[in-house]
């Protein structure tokens, strides 16, 4: 403050900002980027540790040995499932009741806003079955959840078998302090959302479901299990939830600790941890893992059934059994032991998991990057926008003061300039609104006039509106009067830069990865665009960093990192699917990525586009 109240020093500072603006911006970008790249370097990261006292010191002794029972349950379930062609509700009810659980069912119906072509769902009608193991001498105030999705085909039978075997083993134990809910959900995420909404008696997404009869208090933690083979070679953990929410790091640590204890191979993002760390391939390996996490988190899509629990402040992870060509295999007893250990530790919890981190990136299972470490990256990127807008502001005020000293009649020209900015900003946002509302509302109109399915109609309408937005500058200029001044575009750019900075800052607090992906692409281009100079280059750059292109390249990069490289055409197919998926995520589970792009980022980008074509 003292710095700013002193006119001399202020002048020196403003001179510094204006004169060294470009080098400062470049430096800040490079620092940000290299900081991010450095996050995956092992010496810069912290080792994970269990912070929760109740889970730390006491190791439990696992005694689950009923792997063969799990497999026989799985086989029986598979045959019944094949017979009834769907979820065998009656069989599940009977089996769970025989095991001594309190069994309840919950039926739900949900009509999707438009048909989902990847999973072939439109009018979804299903039933969730869940059995509650009542803890002895506890008043059902707390509970844990073990959920198993009942998938189509032959998937996940083994997971269900293991869950039933665990239920029968857990039922005979006296040490439970929290109720345990064994949930079999139909239509994976839709069923899970229906169950969670009914359990908490809320209706967020327009799901119709039956009244829920059995409850077990506040759910403390949840594990979702997916195993599709009799033996596995490794266990994979999925952490990223809806809107990029993450479970408490202690949940991940718990999984890691018990995999270690039982000698199980465990992976994150499908990547096994490397033994060495000081070689370049090892660094690349952990960078790839981090990047995969950033891409998955940035998508805002739940990476497993656990993802929907996080909204309700329930720490949850998904465990997936992987059966690859590796030599050494683990049987159901070992996985059962791992789960038993995890549940017993969770059972020991006195409080909700709150000790460890909620915001983190994982370069490997044993290393983590906390929010304090990765936020400077974002700070550096945002700094560019702040520097650039300070520069613009100073230029604007300086030209104003110069004019005041000299000719005073230019003042009248400036005023309508600011007012006329309302028109382009408004038009950009109206385009954003139509991007959000028109595709789903107009799908029936579209299929009447064009030979496409509903899903295609929606996706194509989204793309059409998105592209149509590019033609806006030519139309808005007719509305503008007297905006052709230099102050006009500078003011518009100033507003756009600040607007972008605020948007990115907000989203980075909710979902760092999304904010980072948008910032690393949009920020440098947003800083350089102007209506003078190589306009075509600016336009091309802008198109390269538009959220849609970012999505396209993210898919490409994801497939590349996931060791399933794809051609551009296949990527295009996935891109179309991702748009439909993003819309469905929003309508079905309340993901905020699509509305955020449509309402905020896209209009802001259109404003930048306007600047390039300023006349």
């Amino acid at each position, binding site marked *: *403050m*003292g710095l700013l*109240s002193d*006119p001399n020093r202020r002048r020196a500072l403003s001179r510094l900002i204006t004169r060294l603006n470009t080098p400062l911006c470049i430096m800040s970008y490079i620092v940000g980027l290299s900081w991010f790249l450095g996050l995956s370097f092992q010496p810069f990261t912290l080792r994970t540790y269990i912070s929760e006292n109740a889970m730390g010191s006491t190791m439990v002794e696992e005694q689950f040995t009923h792997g063969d029972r799990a497999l026989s349950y799985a086989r029986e379930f598979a045959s019944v499932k094949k017979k009834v062609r769907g979820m065998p509700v009656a069989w599940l009810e*009977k089996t769970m*009741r*025989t095991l*001594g659980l*309190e*069994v309840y069912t919950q039926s739900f119906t949900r009509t999707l806003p438009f048909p989902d072509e990847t999973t072939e769902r439109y009018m979804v009608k299903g039933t969730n079955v869940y059995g509650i193991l*009542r803890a*002895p*001498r*506890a*008043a*059902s*105030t*707390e509970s844990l959840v073990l959920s198993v999705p009942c998938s189509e085909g032959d998937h996940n039978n083994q997971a269900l078998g293991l869950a039933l075997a665990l239920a029968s083993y857990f*039922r*005979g*134990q*006296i040490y439970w302090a929290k109720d345990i809910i064994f949930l079999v959900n139909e239509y994976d995420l839709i069923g899970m959302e229906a169950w969670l909404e009914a359990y*908490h*008696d*809320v209706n967020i997404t327009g799901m119709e479901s039956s*009244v829920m*009869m059995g*409850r077990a*208090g*506040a759910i403390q933690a949840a594990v979702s299990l997916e195993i599709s083979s009799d033996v596995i070679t490794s266990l994979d953990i999925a952490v990223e939830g809806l809107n990029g929410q993450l479970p408490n790091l202690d949940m991940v640590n718990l999984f890691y600790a018990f995999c270690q204890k039982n000698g199980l191979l465990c992976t994150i993002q499908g990547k096994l941890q490397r033994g060495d760390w000081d070689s370049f391939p090892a660094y690349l390996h952990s960078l790839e893992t981090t990047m995969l996490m950033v891409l998955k988190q940035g998508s805002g899509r739940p990476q497993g059934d656990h993802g929907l629990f996080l*909204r*309700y*402040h329930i720490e949850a992870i998904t465990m997936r059994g992987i059966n690859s060509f590796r030599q050494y295999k683990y049987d159901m007893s070992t996985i059962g032991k791992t789960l038993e250990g995890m549940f017993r530790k969770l059972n020991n919890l*006195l*409080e*909700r998991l*709150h*000790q460890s981190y909620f915001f983190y990136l994982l370069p490997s299972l044993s290393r983590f990057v906390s929010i304090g470490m990765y936020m400077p990256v974002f700070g550096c990127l945002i700094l560019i926008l702040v520097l650039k807008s300070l520069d613009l502001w100073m230029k604007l005020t300086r030209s104003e003061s110069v004019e005041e000293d000299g000719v005073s009649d230019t003042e009248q020209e400036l005023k309508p300039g600011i007012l006329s900015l309302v028109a382009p900003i408004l038009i950009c946002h109206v385009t954003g609104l139509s991007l959000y509302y028109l595709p789903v509302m107009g799908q029936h109109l579209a299929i009447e006039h064009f030979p496409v399915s509903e899903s295609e109609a929606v996706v194509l309408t989204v793309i059409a509106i998105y592209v149509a937005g590019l033609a806006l500058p030519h139309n808005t200029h007719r509305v503008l009067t007297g905006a052709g001044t230099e102050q006009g575009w500078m003011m518009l750019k100033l507003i756009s830069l600040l607007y972008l900075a605020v948007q990115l800052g907000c989203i980075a607090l909710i979902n760092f990865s999304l904010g980072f992906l948008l910032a690393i692409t949009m920020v440098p281009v947003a800083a350089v665009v102007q209506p003078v100079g190589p306009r075509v280059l600016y336009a091309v750059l802008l198109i390269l960093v538009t959220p849609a292109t970012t999505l396209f390249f993210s898919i490409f990069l994801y497939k590349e990192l996931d060791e399933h490289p794809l051609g551009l055409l296949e990527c295009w197919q996935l891109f179309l699917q991702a748009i439909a998926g993003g819309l469905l995520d929003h309508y079905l589970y309340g993901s905020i990525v699509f509305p955020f792009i449509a309402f905020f980022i896209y209009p802001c980008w259109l404003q930048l586009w306007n600047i390039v074509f300023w006349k």
Partner: protein
Amino acid sequence: MAALWLLCAVALGLGRGRSWAAEGLGAPDFPELGDSLREELVIAPLQSGDVAATFQFRTRWDSELLGQEVFHYRLFPKALGQVISKYSVQELHLSFTHGFWRSRAWGHPFLQAPAGAELWVWFQDSVSDVDQTWKELTNILSGIFCASLNFIDSTNTVTPTASFKPMGLSNVTDHRLLRYAILPREVVCTENLTPWKKLLPCGSRAGLAVLLKAERLFHSSYHSQAVHIRPICKDSQCLRVSWELRQTLTVVFDMFSTGQGKRDWSLFKMFTRTGLEACPLASQSKIYVALSSRDQENEPFDVSPPPTSVQEVSFQGDRRRYAVYDLQSRELSNSSRNLNIMLKWKGPQEKGDPLAPVLYTQRYIGGYGLQKGELNTVIYNSHPYRAFPIIFMETVPWYLRLYVHTLVITTKGKDNKPSYIHYQPAKDRLCPHLLEMLIQLPANSATKITIQFERALLKWTEYPPDPNHGFYVSPSTVSALLPSVIGMKTDSMEESPLFTTLFPSSDGSSYFVRLYTEPLLVNLPTPDFSMPYNVICLTCTVVAVGYGSFYNLLTRTLQREEPRTGGLAKRLANIIRKLRGVPAL
């Protein structure tokens, strides 16, 4: 039956036995030194396959505890007697429960108790400062029972207006003399069991109490122990008052963790002990085994050894048959050293959805996030054609701020208007919300009571240890007069086992039931206590820097400074010039 009892009485030939035999015959003839002990154990297989064992020890004392000084105690525990006379207690009901009675799966219990500790006391109208007496009483009881009853204070004490009535002989129904409190977080363990057992005349050395071994009682799915003290009529004329102390203990053994997944039960399997003898001080010592309810004509299971007799009683609107084992009868006392009552089921285990009782409840918190929430209670009336009213009572701690205008009661999709509402709003840090309503439940319906609340932000010293565990909301109570299936004879109740006499009903067409819902666990917005140092440092820095510079900006007068030339040399010269009296440069 009377003949059998007489036979036993003659065989024993004790003075105490005479009074008991006379009571058995129904003639109100009590001896001068009127204290007696009756011990009972009821074993009832539950439809879920579990088994419930309920002990009751009734000590009756024909003495005026109030008014006159009593020095000589025989069977009645002195500790409680002194408490009653000192604090002018009219009635006292205290229960400690670990676990939750699952009405839906287990049916109605003899007497339900809420999870945690519950205490309700009626005081005599001679008590002038009820609140002070209540406070002292809770502290005394806390010491007697080794429990945290001293945590009962004004923030969890309420005075219900309609839900609770005196159970004993009383002409006071002024609810201002009633105090009621629940501590849902209270954990019950052996330290509470031992003082409870010490109140028994035989302790745990003889009688049915030998079965009460802590390691078995706490290896169960439900454990509840209670003390009920009330005045009753001394005789049928009811001119003088007797005091009755009932000590009850209910325990439910789990089929899967204790019974190895089988429904067959035996005394040994439950208590790991067989030999039983009556307490020598007891005038009656019996074990009852519930055989069947009205639907099943023949028993679904065999009981061995053959019982002394089979008794039929009407209980909870139903006629039940009990196999009675009289520990004081001669034929049983010969073999009682290895008496091991066994239940063997005849048919295979059928596993259907358990038959729901007429009235059951469910309670839960709706919504998510740490700002608002919704308190939901669903009350089911599964009676096929009878509607009945209930009194619903809810006590909510002050830190959940109820919005009473959001109170909605719906039955079958329609608004259900309560005919009586008593609402006492909370005062922050002083007293809880109390909501009492009289609601009519239509036949075969589910009634949902919903009320929204906001979670208050506590002061940082008000959080208990482990604040992230959450805060408990005590169970709500549902009191109802349920229509009975059969006409009950009210006069024969004294003979029937257990609690039937506790709730006297005026006519035989209905019976009284009080249910408790689950306690709830609510998370409040909790600060991160692990970083107070960081927070203090950061706040101080921000305040100091921010305040300092703002103060600077606001108070400083800004003026353009003349470019200074010369510097130190010039200043020195000026000082010299000043000394010389010459104007400065």
